[in-house]
């Protein structure tokens, strides 16, 4: 029950972090274009990322698919962090973006852990007994 509430708060924060950039990505905002240009990605690239972030947000808000949304946002944020480390850096605005990416990444990990029983291959990682009686 307590974990459920914590997980929901985390889900909403991740959805907020991912969601607030979508508008800029889909409207070709110059800051976004400039930042993704450093990664060698054009409008196709950031719109693809934006679409995947939108999917992650939707999955995070549907109770039965939360874990899939969390895995997707974990992956996207891992990519974002790698981008910051390797190409974009942490100067000024980019630093704030990187901070939010790291926060979303950590919260995604938390959600994956709390919702581990939704997917048996995640539940197996923690040794939780899954409902599949065939597993040894």
């Amino acid at each position: 029950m307590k974990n459920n509430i914590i997980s929901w708060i985390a889900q909403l924060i991740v959805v907020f972090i991912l969601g607030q950039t979508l508008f800029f990505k889909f409207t070709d905002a110059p800051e976004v274009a400039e930042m993704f240009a450093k990664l060698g990605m054009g409008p196709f690239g950031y719109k693809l990322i934006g679409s995947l972030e939108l999917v992650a947000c939707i999955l995070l808000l549907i109770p039965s698919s939360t874990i899939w949304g969390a895995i997707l946002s974990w992956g996207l944020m891992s990519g974002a962090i790698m981008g910051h480390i390797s190409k974009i850096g942490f100067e000024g605005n980019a630093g704030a973006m990187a901070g939010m990416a790291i926060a979303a990444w950590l919260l995604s990990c938390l959600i994956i852990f709390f919702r581990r029983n939704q997917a048996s291959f995640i539940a197996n990682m923690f040794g939780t007994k899954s409902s599949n009686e065939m597993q040894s």
Partner: protein
Amino acid sequence: MASSLHIDLHKISKFVNLSIPALFVVFLSAGHFVSFYFHFFTVAFLFMVIANFFYMTVQKEHVILKNFGLMGQARYIIESIGPEMRQYLFASDTEERPFNREERSEVYRKAKNIDSASSFGSQQNFDPSEIKIRHTMFPTPKEALQPFKITYGEERGLEFAYTITRPIMISAMSYGALGTNAVRSLARGAKLANIPMNTGEGGYPEYHLMEDCDLIFQIGTAKFGVRTDDGLLDDTKLAEIASKPQIRMIEIKFSQGAKPGKGGLLPKEKITDEIAKLRGIKKGADVVSPPYHPECDTVEKTVAFIKRVQNVSGLPTGFKICLGKVSEFEVLVEEMKRQDVYPDFITVDGAEGGTGAAPKAFLDGVGLPLLVGLASIQDCLKRHGIRNKMKLNASGKLISPRAQLVAFALGADAIYSARGFMLSLGCIQALQCGNNTCPIGITTHDPELQKGLVIESRAPRIANYVHNIEHDLEELLRATGCKSFSELTEENLYIPSDTVLGNYRLNSPEVQAAAS
């Protein structure tokens, strides 16, 4: 013997476990030096590296994952789709349990009113150890057949004696085990086919009553629907239910073939407002179904209890039993004679009977199979000269006309089937009855799953099944040269000695008495 095509899964898993981090590094470099798009793969492999680390070092529950890592998941994934794959692709037509594809498709054809003639030869394993029906050289002409008609309660001259005119009835399935649509489809089909339906022990039969078919009210050991607060029989409630015009008979459940000698427990989580109301129980506490009726702890009290239910209800009243010890039944019969109280019918259930949920040990291992149980009870009643005091119903995997005719020949007056009717509804034998996840919406209360079960389209299938079963039974009956089912005897069967029944016959008291 080592063959050149030998696949060493251990080596493969080691290779995979090394490749995953290696590929992670490869894609990481490609993402950095070639194109950032490669990082989509980097992230995927990072995920696998982490998962593999957890599988092989952190978790302690799953041996396969600990030893072989991610590759071990392949086993689980492939294994999890095994039942479906086997049913769709690999299982032969005659090897599934409890009903193989051939048996199921016979019911489907009957329910859909499709001709069930098959070509070229029997699919059954035609070994000499099968019970077969002996035909005559002079089959009964169609017009000489006597119409089927038996009257429950005629022995006692009851005012509310109940006559059935078709040989099969829908066996006990409660609301609770079945969902709303399934109950109503069955009830509407029963009404169409003019056969009675047993309510099961699920309490007040609200949904059964909606379709206005004839009902046999079953009293389980927890007395759902007719119980006092401490789980004993409430006479007023029983009288009230029995006074409904649709309720035609009462069946006291002593035991059930799927789990004889076993009680049950209705967990408090499953007790919804509706279930509490229909079953007459309180919310918030588990309800125990004892393994036997608390009123019936001795033979005397058992017979007295039958008498009490007969008197309170005023309806034909019998009991359902899966035979365990023949000697025990013999004592019961002697007590019936002593008190001059006879049930109006006995339903003999075989250990092969089905259920929504029972411990596997009971499902597989307890109780006499139907044919032996039925023959034992028939013999016992005859030996005591009281066979004419009551009717015998047979139940337990009797979904095909052949099995049903064998039961008639062993002494049954009418046939009960539950799973035959579930298959008619469209059951695909997904074996999910106890999980609330029945894909056909029969044994579930999930409205999403029930919506596919449209009552209007299902009810006629029930009637078709009854009609076609009756047709086949009559054809078989004519082949034996008998004019009615009551004329059938074991003389009409070929019972090899190496069948369960044949073996029983060789050792039965009658044969031994004749030999000595």
